[in-house]
């Protein structure tokens, strides 16, 4: 592109840094997004708003439409002026009975469609009623079955509760008995130690008596 043709942009606008050795499109786009975001919000909004609103004003008339001459201008003005009288002109040009007939035909057609739809609605409603009836009986049956099963489950639960209570009692008793036995064992141990001491004393006494007797 020729340098002379280019529109020069300010240095502030050309601040995007590009690593030409390793181009990363995403990174460039992020920089562009950051640059736009750093502008005052008002400016961005205004720009978007302008783009939306001014579109029609910016765009000249369509290419396909013929160039507007004096005749078409006059035609447009006449059409504009005649617009309020359009119903009257229509009334004068078209026979009223034809319009009436068309309206009645349209109404009749609409009525028939409405009748058809109403009938279909009734059919659908009766079908839904039948389905609901079937559903209700199914729900009752299921309810009964569920109740029976629940009763059985509660009975089983009661039995399990009693059994647990008994087990608890038994465990408690076992603990008491075990404690008692431990105390008994300790008592017996002490007694056996006393007896051992008594026996040792008697042995010593026996030896002393023997010494005295034979000396």
């Amino acid at each position: 592109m020729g340098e002379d043709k280019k529109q020069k942009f300010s240095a502030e606008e050309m601040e995007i840094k590009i690593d030409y050795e390793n181009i990363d499109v995403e990174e460039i786009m992020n920089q562009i997004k950051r640059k736009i975001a750093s502008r005052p919000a008002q400016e961005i909004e205004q720009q978007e708003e302008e783009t939306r609103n001014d579109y029609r004003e910016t765009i000249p008339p369509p290419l396909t439409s013929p160039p507007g001459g004096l005749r078409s201008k006059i035609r447009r003005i006449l059409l504009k002026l005649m617009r309020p009288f359009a119903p009257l002109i229509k009334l004068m040009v078209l026979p009223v009975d034809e319009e009436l007939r068309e309206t009645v035909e349209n109404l009749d057609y609409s009525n028939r469609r409405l009748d058809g739809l109403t009938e279909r609605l009734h059919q659908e409603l009766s079908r839904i009623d039948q389905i609901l009836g079937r559903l209700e009986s199914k729900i009752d049956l299921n309810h009964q079955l569920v109740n029976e099963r629940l009763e059985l489950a509660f009975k089983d639960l009661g039995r399990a509760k009693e059994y647990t209570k008994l087990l608890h009692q038994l465990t408690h008793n076992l603990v008491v008995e075990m404690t008692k036995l431990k105390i008994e064992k300790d008592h017996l141990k002490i007694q056996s130690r006393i007896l051992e001491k008594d026996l040792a004393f008697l042995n010593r006494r026996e030896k002393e008596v023997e010494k005295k007797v034979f000396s």
Partner: protein
Amino acid sequence: MKIAFVVQRYGMEINGGAELHCRWIAEHMKKYYEVEVLTTKAYDYITWENYYLDDIEEINGVLVRRFPVARPRNPMRFGRIQQFVFHHEHKIDDELKWLEEEGPLAPALIKYIDQHRADYDYFIFFSYRYYHSYWGIQTVPEKSILVPTAEHDPVVYLRIFKELFSLPRAFIYNSEEEKNMIQRVANNSHILGKVVGVGIEIPSSWPTQQVLEQRGIASDYLVYIGRIDENKGCDKLFQYFLKFKERTNYPVKLVLVGSTKLTIPHHPDLIYLGFVSEEEKFAILQGALLLIMPSFYESLSMVTLEAWALEKPVLANAHCEVLQGQCQRSQGGLYYENYAEFEETLKLLLEDDKLREILSQNGRRYFESNYTWEVIEQKYNYIISKLEEEKENK
């Protein structure tokens, strides 16, 4: 091995979208397999009215079987049904009614597929959203390969398609974004699928200077190539470009190539060339500074690939996930979401010749490694061989 390509329209006159995509693939795959095309007699994609007369014809060495459209589309009726289906609570039946209106309604084509299923090894369906794909895949799911060409629009979320997306043996996607979208919608990641796209046909030469002189294009210009309508974001493009001109007074024009359904504003910097030949198109693209793609909905954008093939950078609409993804993967273009970004990116691209050059080279590299015909053919062959392996293992 015999493969049928099933597509809504087919012909030399149809020069865009999934139909051209299908034609190019069929013509390239004929050197590996026996290829036939099953299509309708429609040409107009709005009404689907029967246009082609012959039941069977040969186009560029490919046998084409055409089936009549039973009822053309009534655009008003279709619009009403689509409005209802997109914006109101509805039943599956309503969606099927929508599909019937979407068309092209060609039950004879489906009947043929059903009766001749044994004659073909695989049916490759193009464009998920039409009658032929929906009912065709339901008819021969075990032999179906779907090239969805899906865009991120409300149609993809219709319930009938969730079920459809779980039927084919394999998917051939146009882009990663399309693959992710369909797998998200249908939860079908277990089905074989590959991102392939389409190769690009580039003429051997084109007289750029001559075309530009003939068309009276003397200054620097940006180019948009494609259908000029609102769905392609062209109204927004005009709005943004004229605003850009008003604010910056940059000496650049916008050249528009393609048929128009939109009133183009009369402005000295908007040059409308209408429909041009392939050679002229490449000549105009070659002469441009960059390609602008303002479309909101694209499943691939062949013209973007063409730009990269010709070493042209792209400025794309970021609201289109595919275009944004392609720019990021290729490092061959920038993208914009709003006017402020449009202005900044365009200014940057116009000012920075070096950036434009590097983006162009990146685009070309991306094109060469993903979208040359050798690569595309290999990928198609890979899918077929995978399916054959599965068949043998069963």
